[in-house]
């Protein structure tokens, strides 16, 4: 069964994934909207940067984040001068890393969903007297609902599954920065296959149910 450190890892993982998704939806939605509308050449650069975590080895991303967040890095150094702690090996550091790592999984479905709406519904809303922000929330967001669902689930699941980045910038501090995927790795290393089975099997089931929910809901959205 699960012991106390397993439960702690589960809790940290869920908090990390939940927080990351919330932050990504807040930052990613305007970014995805801009990407879906803009005609500027600069767009390609932004798209490439957003997609980078898809292809970059997680250890590479983790390495640069470690350098940046550590006491001698720009971000960590700034935190120190402000009287705080460097962010490497902290939960906050994990959140920052996860936001970068899962960015494409949130931005790309949203961008696709926004682009699929086309110009017309927003123009109709404008001629019906809705201001740009009004029509964004009353037309674009509801019409992009499948995209939001996909983005949320993919962003959450991808954060839960991350390993390399977390290992690089979070270390493996039980109760603080030890997440599920690393706990499983530790159990396997220690030949505790029973523990590993419980955690791995639990995750497998959880993700299957999550994806099932996405597909069922997305089908319903289309019909409704």
């Amino acid at each position: 069964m699960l012991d106390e450190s397993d439960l702690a890892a589960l809790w940290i993982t869920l908090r990390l994934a939940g927080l990351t998704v919330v932050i990504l939806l807040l930052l990613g939605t305007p970014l995805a909207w801009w990407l879906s509308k803009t005609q500027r050449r600069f767009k390609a650069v932004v798209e490439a940067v957003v997609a980078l975590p898809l292809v970059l080895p997680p250890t590479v991303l983790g390495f640069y984040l470690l350098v940046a967040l550590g006491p001698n890095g720009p971000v960590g150094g700034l935190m120190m001068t402000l009287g705080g702690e460097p962010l490497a090996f902290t939960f906050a550091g994990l959140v920052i890393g996860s936001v970068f790592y899962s960015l494409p999984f949130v931005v790309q479905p949203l961008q696709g969903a926004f682009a699929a709406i086309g110009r017309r519904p927003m123009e109709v809303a404008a001629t019906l007297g809705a201001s740009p922000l009004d029509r964004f929330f009353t037309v674009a967001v509801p019409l992009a609902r499948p995209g939001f669902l996909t983005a949320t689930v993919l962003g959450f699941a991808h954060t839960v599954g991350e390993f390399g980045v977390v290992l690089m910038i979070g270390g493996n501090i039980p109760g603080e920065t030890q997440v599920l995927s690393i706990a499983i790795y530790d159990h396997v290393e220690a030949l505790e296959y029973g523990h590993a089975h419980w955690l791995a099997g639990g995750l497998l089931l959880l993700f299957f149910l999550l994806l099932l929910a996405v597909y069922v809901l997305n089908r319903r959205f289309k019909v409704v």
Partner: protein
Amino acid sequence: MTVTIEARFLIKRDDFTLDADFTVPAQGISAIFGASGCGKTTLLRAIAGLEQPARGYLKIAGEVWQDGERFLPPHQRPLGYVFQEASLFPHLSVLGNLKYGYKRLPPEARRVDFDQAVTLLGIAPLLARRPEGLSGGERQRVAIARALLTSPRLLLMDEPLAALDRQSKTEILPFLERLHEELSIPVLYVSHAPDEVARLADQLVLLEQGRVRASGPIGEMLTRVDLPLAHGDEAEAIVEATVAEHDEAFHLAHLEFPGGRFTVARKDLPLGQPVRLRLLARDVSLSLERHEGTSILNIFPAKVETLADENPAQLMVRLDAGGVPILSRITRKSATILALEPGKPVYVQVKTVALLG
């Protein structure tokens, strides 16, 4: 001083330039007419503020919506826009669609009553339905009601019937006519279908390759022989008449217009009802005397105004019948025999009259 819609726009694209300038009265239906690709839709979008960058000037009934300094964004222009495709919001019910613009209007600014609009367009039974369950004609009626419910000071319609099949078209046309009769909202109606224009429009703006070739009252524009509208097999004149008398014995109705009276097969039209008649130029013949021994009932005096070449064999004659312009297409030979020239009095014989609507 008459209340007008004044529009001037200059839009330059790589392959197309719109340089349009027109003024029409701010009442009734003004058709923006022209071939596909002449810039009708772009012009309408510019009026709605949807086309940028558009240099222009737009003044609606005394209010400037756009000039060199001001650009009222689309959501601040009090207009309704009916697109070619109904473009209903798929995530809202019919009622939700209708209320979208309506509820964004302060109650004191609502001049079109909700129930009135719903009744006018016959969509009361559809309110709870979702857009994807509606027929094309039903969707377009909902879209028209949705636009009306913003109490627009100007209604823009971009070929609202073009995407519909013939049956849906005939289903919607009566609603558009009622709209015309019951609401005092000026309409700019983009179309490339001459029959729709003849039936609905009061004014016509003729657009050619991004420029306004001419504009004016529909009866005048259709019969101006210097314009392409007054040529070809479909050249026609439009006459506004009223139902004056019923002939019970022969089942006919007499319709009066300033130049005389028409007799048509009786339809159930109440006395005093205004009707619009269409006279195809090819159905109108001319003679110097009033013939008695003829089966043609519709004969009245007129004066020749202009003669224009149609083709080597035929001429188009524009006539004045009590101030109403009428077209007649005759052979060059007949014109010579009758010695037709401007100012000459003749008798007009009309073989067929079509009642529009």
